[in-house]
Protein backbone atom coordinates (compact mmCIF):
# COMPACT_ATOMS: atom_id res chain seq x y z
CA UNK A 1 0.00 0.00 0.00
CA UNK A 2 1.27 3.49 -0.87
CA UNK A 3 2.18 5.73 2.06
CA UNK A 4 0.29 9.04 2.22
CA UNK A 5 3.72 10.63 2.52
CA UNK A 6 4.87 9.12 -0.76
CA UNK A 7 5.89 12.14 -2.90
CA UNK A 8 3.39 11.38 -5.66
CA UNK A 9 0.56 10.99 -3.18
CA UNK A 10 1.57 14.04 -1.18
CA UNK A 11 1.81 16.02 -4.37
CA UNK A 12 -1.74 15.00 -5.29
CA UNK A 13 -3.05 16.08 -1.88
CA UNK A 14 -1.22 19.38 -2.22
CA UNK A 15 -2.48 20.08 -5.72
CA UNK A 16 -6.07 19.35 -4.75
CA UNK A 17 -5.74 21.58 -1.69
CA UNK A 18 -4.31 24.46 -3.68
CA UNK A 19 -6.94 24.12 -6.38
CA UNK A 20 -9.80 24.12 -3.84
CA UNK A 21 -8.48 27.12 -1.92
CA UNK A 22 -7.72 29.17 -5.01
CA UNK A 23 -11.23 28.71 -6.30
CA UNK A 24 -13.03 28.78 -2.93
CA UNK A 25 -11.11 31.56 -1.16
CA UNK A 26 -9.72 33.73 -3.92
CA UNK A 27 -12.30 32.92 -6.62
CA UNK A 28 -9.45 32.25 -9.04
CA UNK A 29 -8.58 29.44 -11.38
CA UNK A 30 -4.94 28.49 -11.57
CA UNK A 31 -3.29 26.10 -13.97
CA UNK A 32 -0.69 23.51 -13.01
CA UNK A 33 2.47 24.39 -14.83
CA UNK A 34 6.03 23.36 -15.49
CA UNK A 35 8.79 25.06 -13.51
CA UNK A 36 9.22 28.65 -14.64
CA UNK A 37 12.38 29.64 -16.48
CA UNK A 38 15.20 30.96 -14.30
CA UNK A 39 15.15 34.12 -16.41
CA UNK A 40 11.48 34.73 -15.54
CA UNK A 41 12.16 34.28 -11.83
CA UNK A 42 15.23 36.50 -11.97
CA UNK A 43 13.30 39.25 -13.72
CA UNK A 44 10.82 39.57 -10.85
CA UNK A 45 11.84 41.50 -7.76
CA UNK A 46 9.88 41.03 -4.56
CA UNK A 47 8.31 37.72 -3.53
CA UNK A 48 6.07 36.69 -0.66
CA UNK A 49 6.61 33.31 0.95
CA UNK A 50 3.89 32.05 3.30
CA UNK A 51 4.76 29.18 5.60
CA UNK A 52 2.71 27.05 7.99
CA UNK A 53 4.60 24.58 10.23
CA UNK A 54 3.01 21.15 10.71
CA UNK A 55 3.50 19.01 13.78
CA UNK A 56 2.50 15.44 14.59
CA UNK A 57 3.74 12.67 16.78
CA UNK A 58 7.24 11.89 15.50
CA UNK A 59 6.64 13.98 12.41
CA UNK A 60 7.12 17.60 11.54
CA UNK A 61 7.19 19.67 8.41
CA UNK A 62 5.80 22.70 6.66
CA UNK A 63 3.77 23.96 3.76
CA UNK A 64 5.21 26.90 1.82
CA UNK A 65 3.72 28.98 -0.94
CA UNK A 66 5.77 31.48 -2.89
CA UNK A 67 4.45 34.01 -5.37
CA UNK A 68 5.39 37.46 -6.70
CA UNK A 69 4.41 40.24 -4.30
CA UNK A 70 2.47 42.19 -6.95
CA UNK A 71 0.38 39.07 -7.62
CA UNK A 72 -0.70 38.96 -3.95
CA UNK A 73 -1.64 42.64 -4.23
CA UNK A 74 -3.64 41.98 -7.34
CA UNK A 75 -5.42 39.03 -5.73
CA UNK A 76 -6.31 41.22 -2.71
CA UNK A 77 -7.69 43.93 -5.01
CA UNK A 78 -9.59 41.28 -6.98
CA UNK A 79 -11.25 40.10 -3.79
CA UNK A 80 -12.16 43.43 -2.15
CA UNK A 81 -11.41 46.28 -4.54
CA UNK A 82 -8.30 48.45 -4.62
CA UNK A 83 -6.44 49.13 -1.38
CA UNK A 84 -8.84 47.40 1.03
CA UNK A 85 -7.03 44.20 1.98
CA UNK A 86 -3.43 43.71 3.06
CA UNK A 87 -1.61 41.41 0.58
CA UNK A 88 0.65 40.01 3.32
CA UNK A 89 -2.31 39.08 5.51
CA UNK A 90 -4.06 37.55 2.52
CA UNK A 91 -0.93 35.52 1.76
CA UNK A 92 -0.81 34.23 5.34
CA UNK A 93 -4.45 33.18 5.31
CA UNK A 94 -4.11 31.65 1.85
CA UNK A 95 -1.17 29.51 3.02
CA UNK A 96 -3.05 28.64 6.21
CA UNK A 97 -6.05 27.38 4.25
CA UNK A 98 -3.93 25.33 1.84
CA UNK A 99 -2.03 23.81 4.79
CA UNK A 100 -5.37 23.05 6.46
CA UNK A 101 -6.62 21.22 3.40
CA UNK A 102 -3.39 19.26 3.18
CA UNK A 103 -3.67 18.34 6.88
CA UNK A 104 -7.27 17.24 6.29
CA UNK A 105 -6.12 15.13 3.34
CA UNK A 106 -3.45 13.47 5.47
CA UNK A 107 -5.92 12.98 8.34
CA UNK A 108 -8.05 10.75 6.12
CA UNK A 109 -5.02 8.42 6.07
CA UNK A 110 -4.67 8.44 9.85
CA UNK A 111 -1.95 11.10 10.03
CA UNK A 112 -3.08 13.84 12.39
CA UNK A 113 -1.11 17.08 12.16
CA UNK A 114 -1.41 20.24 14.22
CA UNK A 115 -1.11 23.48 12.26
CA UNK A 116 0.83 26.41 13.63
CA UNK A 117 0.01 30.00 12.80
CA UNK A 118 1.26 31.16 9.40
CA UNK A 119 4.21 33.47 8.84
CA UNK A 120 4.87 35.49 5.72
CA UNK A 121 8.33 36.53 4.60
CA UNK A 122 9.20 39.08 1.94
CA UNK A 123 12.06 37.93 -0.26
CA UNK A 124 13.99 39.95 -2.81
CA UNK A 125 14.39 36.95 -5.09
CA UNK A 126 12.69 33.60 -5.58
CA UNK A 127 14.13 30.83 -3.38
CA UNK A 128 15.07 28.69 -6.39
CA UNK A 129 16.37 25.81 -4.31
CA UNK A 130 13.77 24.01 -2.23
CA UNK A 131 14.16 21.69 0.70
CA UNK A 132 10.73 20.10 0.45
CA UNK A 133 9.79 16.60 -0.61
CA UNK A 134 7.26 17.90 -3.06
CA UNK A 135 7.22 20.98 -5.22
CA UNK A 136 4.51 21.89 -7.68
CA UNK A 137 4.22 24.89 -9.95
CA UNK A 138 1.13 26.79 -10.94
CA UNK A 139 0.28 29.87 -12.91
CA UNK A 140 -2.47 32.40 -12.57
CA UNK A 141 -2.78 35.75 -14.28
CA UNK A 142 0.34 34.60 -16.11
CA UNK A 143 2.44 34.67 -12.94
CA UNK A 144 4.17 31.71 -11.26
CA UNK A 145 3.13 30.24 -7.93
CA UNK A 146 5.11 27.54 -6.13
CA UNK A 147 3.83 25.08 -3.53
CA UNK A 148 6.41 23.21 -1.44
CA UNK A 149 5.61 20.54 1.15
CA UNK A 150 7.97 18.88 3.58
CA UNK A 151 7.11 16.16 6.09
CA UNK A 152 9.91 14.39 7.96
CA UNK A 153 9.81 11.62 10.51
CA UNK A 154 12.09 11.61 13.53
CA UNK A 155 12.83 9.35 16.46
CA UNK A 156 12.30 11.02 19.83
Amino acid sequence: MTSPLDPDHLSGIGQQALDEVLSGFLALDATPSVAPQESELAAMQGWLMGQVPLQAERRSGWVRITLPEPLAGRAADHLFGPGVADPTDLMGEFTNLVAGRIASGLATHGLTFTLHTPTVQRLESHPGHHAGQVRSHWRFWDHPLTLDILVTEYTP
Partner: protein
Amino acid sequence: MIPKILSVDDSRTTRLLLARLFRPFLCEWFEAADGEEGLVRAMEARPHLIILDYNMPILDGLGMLHRMREIQELRRTPVMMLTAEAGLATLAPLARLGVRDYLTKPFHDEDLLARASRIIPLNPRPPETA
Protein backbone atom coordinates in the same frame (compact mmCIF):
# COMPACT_ATOMS: atom_id res chain seq x y z
CA MET B 1 -33.81 42.45 18.18
CA ILE B 2 -30.85 43.48 16.09
CA PRO B 3 -28.38 40.62 16.39
CA LYS B 4 -24.81 41.36 17.36
CA ILE B 5 -22.12 39.28 15.69
CA LEU B 6 -18.50 39.08 16.80
CA SER B 7 -15.85 37.78 14.40
CA VAL B 8 -12.66 36.61 16.13
CA ASP B 9 -9.99 35.84 13.57
CA ASP B 10 -6.32 36.79 13.28
CA SER B 11 -6.71 37.16 9.53
CA ARG B 12 -8.01 40.59 8.60
CA THR B 13 -8.79 39.14 5.17
CA THR B 14 -11.22 36.65 6.70
CA ARG B 15 -12.77 39.33 8.91
CA LEU B 16 -13.28 41.48 5.81
CA LEU B 17 -14.87 38.56 3.96
CA LEU B 18 -17.24 37.89 6.85
CA ALA B 19 -18.12 41.58 7.34
CA ARG B 20 -18.95 41.85 3.65
CA LEU B 21 -21.05 38.70 3.83
CA PHE B 22 -23.20 40.02 6.70
CA ARG B 23 -23.38 43.64 5.48
CA PRO B 24 -26.71 43.16 3.64
CA PHE B 25 -28.33 41.97 6.87
CA LEU B 26 -29.58 43.97 9.81
CA CYS B 27 -26.94 43.30 12.45
CA GLU B 28 -24.24 44.96 14.52
CA TRP B 29 -20.75 43.85 13.61
CA PHE B 30 -17.77 43.52 15.97
CA GLU B 31 -14.26 42.21 15.39
CA ALA B 32 -11.26 40.94 17.34
CA ALA B 33 -7.88 39.63 16.14
CA ASP B 34 -7.20 36.97 18.79
CA GLY B 35 -8.85 35.15 21.67
CA GLU B 36 -7.78 37.62 24.37
CA GLU B 37 -9.18 40.55 22.43
CA GLY B 38 -12.19 38.40 21.60
CA LEU B 39 -13.01 37.92 25.29
CA VAL B 40 -12.79 41.66 25.92
CA ARG B 41 -14.98 42.49 22.91
CA ALA B 42 -17.45 39.76 23.86
CA MET B 43 -17.82 41.16 27.39
CA GLU B 44 -18.35 44.67 25.98
CA ALA B 45 -20.73 43.78 23.15
CA ARG B 46 -22.48 40.66 24.52
CA PRO B 47 -22.88 39.23 21.00
CA HIS B 48 -25.66 36.86 19.99
CA LEU B 49 -23.22 34.91 17.82
CA ILE B 50 -19.44 34.56 17.84
CA ILE B 51 -17.74 33.34 14.67
CA LEU B 52 -14.48 32.02 16.04
CA ASP B 53 -11.29 31.02 14.28
CA TYR B 54 -9.50 27.96 15.62
CA ASN B 55 -5.85 28.70 14.96
CA MET B 56 -4.79 32.10 16.31
CA PRO B 57 -1.79 33.56 18.14
CA ILE B 58 -1.88 34.79 21.79
CA LEU B 59 -5.04 32.83 22.67
CA ASP B 60 -6.46 30.40 20.12
CA GLY B 61 -10.11 29.56 19.54
CA LEU B 62 -10.06 26.55 21.81
CA GLY B 63 -8.50 28.61 24.61
CA MET B 64 -11.08 31.35 24.18
CA LEU B 65 -13.87 28.76 24.32
CA HIS B 66 -12.50 27.31 27.56
CA ARG B 67 -12.33 30.80 29.09
CA MET B 68 -15.84 31.67 27.87
CA ARG B 69 -17.28 28.64 29.58
CA GLU B 70 -15.85 29.94 32.88
CA ILE B 71 -17.43 33.39 32.50
CA GLN B 72 -21.04 33.57 33.60
CA GLU B 73 -21.99 36.26 31.06
CA LEU B 74 -20.50 34.39 28.09
CA ARG B 75 -21.12 30.80 29.05
CA ARG B 76 -24.18 30.42 26.84
CA THR B 77 -23.13 32.62 23.91
CA PRO B 78 -23.54 30.60 20.71
CA VAL B 79 -20.27 29.97 18.89
CA MET B 80 -19.73 28.93 15.31
CA MET B 81 -16.20 27.70 14.75
CA LEU B 82 -14.15 28.24 11.62
CA THR B 83 -11.28 25.82 11.14
CA ALA B 84 -8.67 25.46 8.43
CA GLU B 85 -8.68 21.69 8.79
CA ALA B 86 -11.42 19.22 9.61
CA GLY B 87 -9.62 16.38 11.39
CA LEU B 88 -11.37 14.55 14.22
CA ALA B 89 -8.65 15.69 16.63
CA THR B 90 -9.68 19.28 15.95
CA LEU B 91 -13.41 18.78 16.07
CA ALA B 92 -13.86 16.50 19.08
CA PRO B 93 -12.88 19.10 21.75
CA LEU B 94 -15.16 21.66 20.09
CA ALA B 95 -18.17 19.40 20.48
CA ARG B 96 -17.33 18.89 24.16
CA LEU B 97 -17.27 22.67 24.66
CA GLY B 98 -20.73 23.08 23.21
CA VAL B 99 -19.84 24.72 19.90
CA ARG B 100 -23.10 25.14 18.00
CA ASP B 101 -21.66 24.61 14.54
CA TYR B 102 -18.42 24.55 12.63
CA LEU B 103 -17.26 25.20 9.12
CA THR B 104 -13.99 24.56 7.39
CA LYS B 105 -12.34 27.40 5.52
CA PRO B 106 -12.67 28.41 2.77
CA PHE B 107 -16.38 28.48 3.56
CA HIS B 108 -19.22 28.79 1.09
CA ASP B 109 -21.09 32.04 1.69
CA GLU B 110 -24.56 30.48 1.42
CA ASP B 111 -23.60 27.67 3.76
CA LEU B 112 -22.27 30.03 6.43
CA LEU B 113 -25.33 32.30 6.21
CA ALA B 114 -27.70 29.33 6.40
CA ARG B 115 -25.98 28.05 9.53
CA ALA B 116 -25.86 31.52 11.12
CA SER B 117 -29.57 32.01 10.44
CA ARG B 118 -30.32 28.93 12.55
CA ILE B 119 -28.81 30.79 15.50
CA ILE B 120 -29.77 34.45 14.92
CA PRO B 121 -32.43 36.15 12.79
CA LEU B 122 -30.98 37.47 9.55
CA ASN B 123 -33.28 40.08 8.08
CA PRO B 124 -32.33 42.27 5.13
CA ARG B 125 -30.95 45.68 6.04
CA PRO B 126 -33.22 48.50 4.89
CA PRO B 127 -31.84 49.98 1.63
CA GLU B 128 -30.99 53.41 3.08
CA THR B 129 -28.64 51.87 5.69
CA ALA B 130 -27.09 49.15 3.47
